[in-house]
């Protein structure tokens, strides 16, 4: 496509504008490349390790639909741990409550230090994953 003719001053300004934009974009692009992790340093995704891998055994023991309760640790990791449990156990709904016949225990970094007296341990799946049941549910 032929560009229409213009004044030399404007051509110079346009050239400056384009070069300025190019330099800044190339700088951003360059930094993006260098800040992206190298394949050799890529670690196993922590989401899979904290969800699917940890809960695989428990998932096989639970029904494929319905609602189970949940009890876990307190602190900063409490919420992500709960979300990751739901992600791993879907399509089962994981309700953050112990008022269910079956309750999933998630104690990734500590022992199940405080378990309500109306729950009893059904099975320890290792890696901080437990299945509890309500005593009256027996």
């Amino acid at each position, binding site marked *: *496509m032929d560009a229409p003719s213009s004044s030399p001053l404007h051509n110079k300004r346009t050239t400056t504008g384009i070069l300025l934009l190019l330099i800044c974009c190339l700088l951003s692009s360059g930094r993006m490349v260098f800040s992206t992790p190298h394949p050799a340093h890529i670690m196993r995704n922590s989401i899979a390790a904290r969800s699917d891998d940890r809960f695989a055994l428990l998932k096989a023991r639970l029904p494929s639909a319905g609602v189970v309760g949940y009890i876990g640790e307190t602190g900063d990791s409490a919420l992500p741990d709960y979300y990751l449990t739901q992600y791993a156990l879907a399509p089962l709904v994981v309700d953050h409550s112990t008022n269910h016949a079956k309750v999933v225990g998630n104690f990734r970094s500590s022992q199940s230090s405080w378990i309500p007296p109306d729950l009893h341990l059904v099975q320890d799946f290792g890696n901080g994953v437990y299945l509890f049941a309500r005593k009256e549910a027996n």
Partner: protein
Amino acid sequence: MAIALAAAISMLSGYLLTDAVWPHARGTVSAWLMKLSLAAGLGLGISSCGFFVTGMAGGDHFVVSDILLLAVIFVLYVLIRVRSGRPIPPNWVTTDFEAPGWLRLVLASSFVVTTFAALYCSGQRMVAHEHGDGWDAFAIWNLHARFLFLGGPHWRDGFNALIPWSHPDYPLLLPAAIARFWSYLGHDNPAVPSLIGFVFTLCTVTLLVSSLAQLRGRNAAMLSGIALSATPFFIEQGAAQYADIPLSFFILASIVLLHFGFRSQWRNNLTHLHGPWLLAGLSAGFAGWTKNEGLLFLGAIFLAHLLTFRARPSSESAPEKPTERKYEISFVLGLIPVLVVIIWFRHSVATAGDLLSSPAIMLEKILTPSRYLAILRWYVKDLLRFGEWWLVPETALLPIFYLLVRKKRIRYDPLLRSSSAALALTFAGYFVIYLITPRDLYWHLRFSLNRLFLQLWPATLFLFFLFVGRQSPAPSQNEPEIP
């Protein structure tokens, strides 16, 4: 093999529909690239709706419903193409940036470098974050996809009030598209959300570059592609498995298609051509089927159109008044099927959203001046840093670029005003949402505002380079004055 079949059906549906209603978009490499990027994005939208409707109807014969949908589109394609005959490729191109030969070479080289850099970073991030990068990926989008795929007859369990944090009111374009691919594969392969994210990222860049190459020329197109590919946050989010990049694609596609629709009448006198309008309506509908912000955009595009074209006296200089209702009807016709799906989802599946509280509380928030100041402050701050650019933010760079390349004679057109107004109204809508949010304001701003800006960024770049490219001293012979 299964994934290739799923992708082929999706792509073919999008391509046949685009080519059936808009056969004029051909003849050049840019036209083909634009059509391919539209076909990929719209195809994913169509197959997502098909999968959702099959699930709602209680069926699990998703392959049969996919093939039926494809057959319907094929019949439509044959009927339209037989009637319309061979289309003549129209002429869109107007004035481009003036650049000497050496600068064009630098521009082309930079385009190649930034494109490969973006592809490299996307690929690395896809491998590094196979379940997405951030909470929303697994806690919302992929979780919904798992319920749709693994839930069988109980898939609706994932959209109940027991897990409100997963936002059961969020629309399902992305989860349904992922679940559909998983259904073909037979297992929930984490590569699928990554690949869909990559396709939308690639299609957004391709659509931006190919549309501007046709409307403005190669230099403006390459500059826009460089500006978008060199936005680190755009590339990061493309691999994060969030819905913001798909939404940005549909917002861009709606605006691009409206521009082609208007120019079909103004520049080429193709008054019978309704395709771009129809596809723009479909794309705007898919924006609403991707995220709730897409519904806000849908309202904004209507309001902006009304304010620009209905509220002003008609000009006699326009060869064919683009405000004629028949074009608006085409837009609405494209929108209606998706709108029906959205309404069905809202009525039968979704729980109430969590952004609205009681009218009294909302009124109290609206009447609190400190909230306006806080939001304004974040808007200004995030406007300069949302792209995660290095040294100079592009949002500061573009006005400088404009001041350097602009000429005294500035020609505005109503379509540019209408599109800019649609983006501005969406932007203002986000502001109102923050104003009334029941959540902690600073938390809400901190974790969402940069992504809201990103949703509008590709469309903003499109309008910017379209507008800046128009700053010519005199209209060329090919370009009549647009009222």
